[in-house]
């Protein structure tokens, strides 16, 4: 895919990306892939010990999903910066209560072009991004910078 600098305007939306409902199995898969074995993300007995309700997704898993959203739109090699703040925790779907809990576990990434400029001899865009669950709760916000042809 080729996204052209001249064709982009400040305020243009980037394509919306919606995840599948995040499951506990996916958290285990992400833990093994990334090496982040914080028990907060898979061990319910640890969760009880620290007074929480359920395991939560790794913030970096949500950022990873946002990265997927971005690189589904622009080429990986054009990314120059990617920065986020985590805003709230994400609980996975309960398989014994799927319909009631899928909303909290489904992440939508949206964003828009905030700036167009030249830097280091490249034409770049900065896009603001936001991740929300299907109930509207904000999960992360941030931005990325990409060089465009």
């Amino acid at each position: 895919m080729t996204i052209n600098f001249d064709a982009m305007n400040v305020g243009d939306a980037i394509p919306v990306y919606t995840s599948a409902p995040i499951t506990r199995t996916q958290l285990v898969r992400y833990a093994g892939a990334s090496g982040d074995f914080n028990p907060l993300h898979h061990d319910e007995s640890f969760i009880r010990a620290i007074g929480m309700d359920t395991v939560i997704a790794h913030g970096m898993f949500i950022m990873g999903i946002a990265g997927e959203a971005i690189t589904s739109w622009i080429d990986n090699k054009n990314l120059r910066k990617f920065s986020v703040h985590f805003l709230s925790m994400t609980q996975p779907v309960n398989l014994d209560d799927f319909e009631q809990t899928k909303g909290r576990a489904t992440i939508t990434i949206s964003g828009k072009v905030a700036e167009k400029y030249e830097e280091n001899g490249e034409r770049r865009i900065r896009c603001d991004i936001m991740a929300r669950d299907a109930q509207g709760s904000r999960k992360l916000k941030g931005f990325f910078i990409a060089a465009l042809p």
Partner: protein
Amino acid sequence: MADKSKLGMEFPLYSIKVEKNKIAEFVAAISQKDDTDHIKDIYRDEDTARKAGFENIPIPPTFPSSFIFWTGGGLLGTVKALGADLNRLLHSGEEYEYFAPICAGDVITRKMKVVDMYDRGKPGRRGMHIQVTVLETEMINQRGELVVRARTTFMER
């Protein structure tokens, strides 16, 4: 609480080889696939990656976090070195600057240091007082090139 005398501390250097299968496993995780056969071709097929202008299969944007977690004792090793409490820890922000691609076969050395430590809120008030720690990690490839700089912010409640 993380020990404030650790401000400025540099962690030992660790190196790790970027493995093709590890990239595929990571991409399967973040793209929520059940196996690595169904990930994007660029992350599993060398020819596709080369046609896209990479020397080999590239990493996805957030993969550099695995260079920290899979070296130096991982999360627990880092938490211990900082004198922090895992039970109170929250990852609050992450930033990557990309200077050049990282691909399968590269050997990445991570150079991490504590660049900031500060308090937010009022000491002694439970739930109000937060200590913030910022780590900066330079990722350097086998040719000595700085390829990624990461800034990781976490809080202790």
